[in-house]
C-alpha cells in the first residue's frame, strides 16, 4: 500500500537489534598494541566506525593518553579527543564514535564505572559498544576480545532509579541480564589480506604461537583463584549487608506492630474514658522511618565477575588437560625418532635402555586413558584407587 511521504516520515524508526560487531583487523592490532604496551596499567581508547543496520562496523580507533586525576587536565583530554577526530576526518577516516575500548586484567572489568560510562555514551549515541581486551589471557593463547553492551531492560530500570528488589523481581532481571555479549566478526580489506598473505614469513615453523602449548598454567590459575577469593569475600560482605537489612526490617515491623497494639489499647481505654482516640499512625516516631534498601547493583556486578573467573578457570582446565594428553603421545613419537637416529649413527648399548624406556612411556598414556575410562581393568600397577576416583570426577564434570 502506498504511503504518503508524510506518513513515512512520521512513522517511527525501529532500530534493528544489534547482532554482530564487525571489527577491522587494523583496529584489533591497534588495540592489542596499545593494551600490551601499557600492561599491567589499564588503558582506554575511542572506537570509530559506522552503524549499519544490525551490524556495527568499527573501522578505526585511537588511544587515550593516561590521565592524572587533575581537574585541569580534563579539559585537555577533551581537546585531545577533538583534535584527533578532526585530524582523522581530514584523511577520510570515519569520524563517528561508536564506543570505546578498554583493557582489563584477567577479566575484572564489571564495575560501576563501566555502567556509568555506558550511560554517558548512550545519551549521545544511539548504539554504542564497549570492547574489552585482556592482554594476560592473550598471553595464554586465546585472543581475548569481547564486545559488550548493556541490555536495554537493565538500562531502563537503572535510569529510572528503580533498582529495588520488587522491581527486579517484576522484570525478572538477574545478574546475568546486565551485560550482553555481542559476537565479534573480523573483516579486512582485500589489499591488507593480500599483503599479509604475501608477507607471511617463509618459515611458518617459527612464527606460530607455540606459547599456547606451555604446560605451566599455574601462574594464570593462581591469579585467577586469588581474584576469585577476593570476589567471594566481597560477595559475602554484600550478603551480610542484605541480611542485616532484612533483620532490621523484621525488627522494625515487630516494633511497629507492638506500638500499634499499644496505641489500640490506649484508644480503647480513651474511648471508654470518652476522650478523642489518638491517630494510629505517627510519622514522627523513628520506628516508622523506612529503612533504605541496600543497593543491589554491586552484588550483581560481583556475581558477574565471579562467573567470569569460574569460566576462565574452566577454560584453562580444558587447555591444560589437552596439553597433558598430547604431551604423553608426543613423547613416544619423539623417542622413536631418537631410536631411528641412533641406528643411523651407530649401534650402541644406549639403544637398549631407550627401547625399554620407550615401552614404559608407551604404557603411560594407556594407563591414563584406561584409568579415565572408568577405572577400567587394564591392571596397571601404578594407579591406586585415588587416581581412578579423580578420573571418575573428571568425566563427570566433563559432561557438566
Amino acid at each position: 500500500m502506498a504511503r504518503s511521504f508524510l506518513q513515512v516520515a512520521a512513522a517511527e524508526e525501529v532500530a534493528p537489534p544489534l547482532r554482530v560487531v564487525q571489527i577491522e583487523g587494523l583496529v584489533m592490532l591497534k588495540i592489542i598494541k596499545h593494551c600490551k604496551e601499557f600492561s599491567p596499567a589499564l588503558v582506554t581508547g575511542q572506537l570509530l566506525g559506522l552503524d549499519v543496520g544490525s551490524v556495527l562496523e568499527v573501522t578505526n580507533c585511537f588511544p587515550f593518553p593516561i590521565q592524572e586525576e587533575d581537574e585541569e587536565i580534563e579539559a585537555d583530554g577533551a581537546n585531545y579527543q577533538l583534535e584527533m577526530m578532526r585530524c582523522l576526518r581530514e584523511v577520510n577516516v570515519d569520524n563517528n564514535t561508536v564506543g570505546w575500548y578498554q583493557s582489563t586484567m584477567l577479566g575484572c572489568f564489571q564495575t560501576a564505572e563501566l555502567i556509568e560510562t555506558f550511560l554517558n555514551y548512550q545519551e549521545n549515541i544511539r548504539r554504542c559498544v564497549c570492547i574489552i581486551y585482556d592482554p594476560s589471557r592473550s598471553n595464554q593463547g586465546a585472543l581475548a576480545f569481547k564486545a559488550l553492551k548493556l541490555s536495554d531492560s537493565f538500562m531502563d530500570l537503572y535510569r529510572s532509579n528503580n533498582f529495588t528488589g520488587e522491581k527486579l523481581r517484576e522484570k525478572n532481571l538477574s545478574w546475568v541480564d546486565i551485560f550482553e555479549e555481542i559476537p565479534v566478526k573480523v573483516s579486512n580489506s582485500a589489499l591488507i589480506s593480500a599483503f599479509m598473505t604475501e608477507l607471511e614469513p617463509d618459515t611458518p615453523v617459527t612464527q606460530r604461537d607455540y606459547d599456547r602449548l606451555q604446560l605451566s598454567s599455574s601462574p594464570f590459575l593462581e591469579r585467577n583463584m586469588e581474584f576469585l577469593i577476593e570476589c567471594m569475600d566481597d560477595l559475602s560482605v554484600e550478603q551480610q549487608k542484605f541480611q542485616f537489612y532484612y533483620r532490621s526490617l523484621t525488627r522494625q515491623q515487630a516494633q511497629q506492630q507492638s506500638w500499634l497494639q499499644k496505641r489500640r489499647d490506649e484508644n480503647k481505654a480513651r474511648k471508654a474514658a470518652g476522650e478523642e482516640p489518638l491517630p494510629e499512625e505517627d510519622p514522627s516516631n523513628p520506628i516508622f522511618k523506612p529503612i533504605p534498601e541496600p543497593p543491589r547493583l554491586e552484588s550483581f556486578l560481583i556475581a558477574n565477575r565471579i562467573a567470569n573467573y569460574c569460566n576462565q578457570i574452566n577454560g584453562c582446565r580444558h587447555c591444560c588437560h589437552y596439553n597433558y594428553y598430547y604431551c604423553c603421545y608426543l613423547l613416544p613419537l619423539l623417542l622413536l625418532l631418537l631410536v631411528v637416529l641412533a641406528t643411523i649413527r651407530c649401534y650402541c648399548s644406549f639403544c637398549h635402555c631407550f627401547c625399554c624406556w620407550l615401552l614404559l612411556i608407551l604404557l603411560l598414556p594407556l594407563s591414563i586413558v584406561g584409568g579415565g575410562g572408568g577405572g577400567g581393568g587394564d591392571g596397571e600397577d601404578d594407579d591406586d584407587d585415588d587416581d581412578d576416583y579423580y578420573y571418575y570426577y573428571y568425566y563427570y564434570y566433563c559432561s557438566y
Partner: protein
Amino acid sequence: MAASDRTVLQFGPSSAVTSNITAKVHPLVIFNISDCYVRRPDQAERVIGTLLGSVLPDGTVDIRNSYVVPHNEFSDQVALDIEYHHTMLKSHLKVNPQEVIVGWFSTGLGVTGGSALIHEFYCREVPNPVHLTVDTGFRNGEGTVKAYVSVNLSLGDRQLAAQFQEIPLDLRMIEAERVGFDILKSTSVDKLPSDLEGMEVLMERLLTLINDIYKYVDDTVEGHAVPDNSVGRILSETVASLPKLSPPAFDKLVNDSLQDQLLLLYLSSITRTQLSLAEKLNTAAQMP
C-alpha cells in the same frame, strides 16, 4: 708517482654506517598504510606519512606506528601539510612519549624525485630518517616493502645528490599478534576462535611438523633422501633436550597437576552453585 688529478665520485664513507642499520616493521604499520591508501582522496596517486618508533641500542630502527599526512604533488613541487603533521605528532606523543619520528613512508614502487624533497624535510626533523616504500600496486606481482636511508653523494667537496640506499627490513610480530595472525590474513572471519579451537589447530600443525620430521628420518635411513649431518644433529639435540624423567616420576607429575586442576574445577563449580543461590536470596526474598 704523481698524484692522480681525477676527482673520484665517492659513495661516501657512510656506506659502512648504513650497512649497520636495519629496520624492523610491525605489521600494524603495514595495515595502517594500506588502510590510508584505500581511503585516499581521489586525485592523489600515492599517500605519504610519518613513521613513529624508536631506535634500539644496537642501531636497529624499530618502526611501531604511523600516521598519514595529507599532501599535494605537482609535477615538480610537493606541498606537505606541516601543521597537520605537527598536530598529529603531538597527539601521539601524549599517548606514548617513547615513540618518536624515525622516518616517513610512501606508497608506490621506487623512489621518485618528489620523494627526495620530502626526505629533505624529514631530515630536518630527525637526523637519519628511514624511508619506507610500500608497493600497494603490486607492480612486481608481489607487495614489496622496502626501506631506504639516504646517503649523500659528494664529488670532491661538492654535494651532488642524495642516494637512497636500501637497508634490510624485517617484519616481526609480537605474540598476541601471532595468535591472531590467521584472523588477519583472510578478508572476513565469522567469529573469533575460542581457546579449544585454537589449541586444536595448533596441535594439528605440530603433529604435521613431527610427521614431516619422521618421514624425513625414515627416508634418510632407507637411503631415499640425502643424509644431512647438521639436520641430524639438530634433531638429536632437540630430542635430547626433553627432560629425563623416570616413568613413575613423570606419572606422578602428571597426576598431581591433574588432581590440582580437578580440585580447582570442583571449587569453581561450587562457586557457581553458590552464585545462583545468592541470586535467589537477593531477589526472591520477600518481606510479608
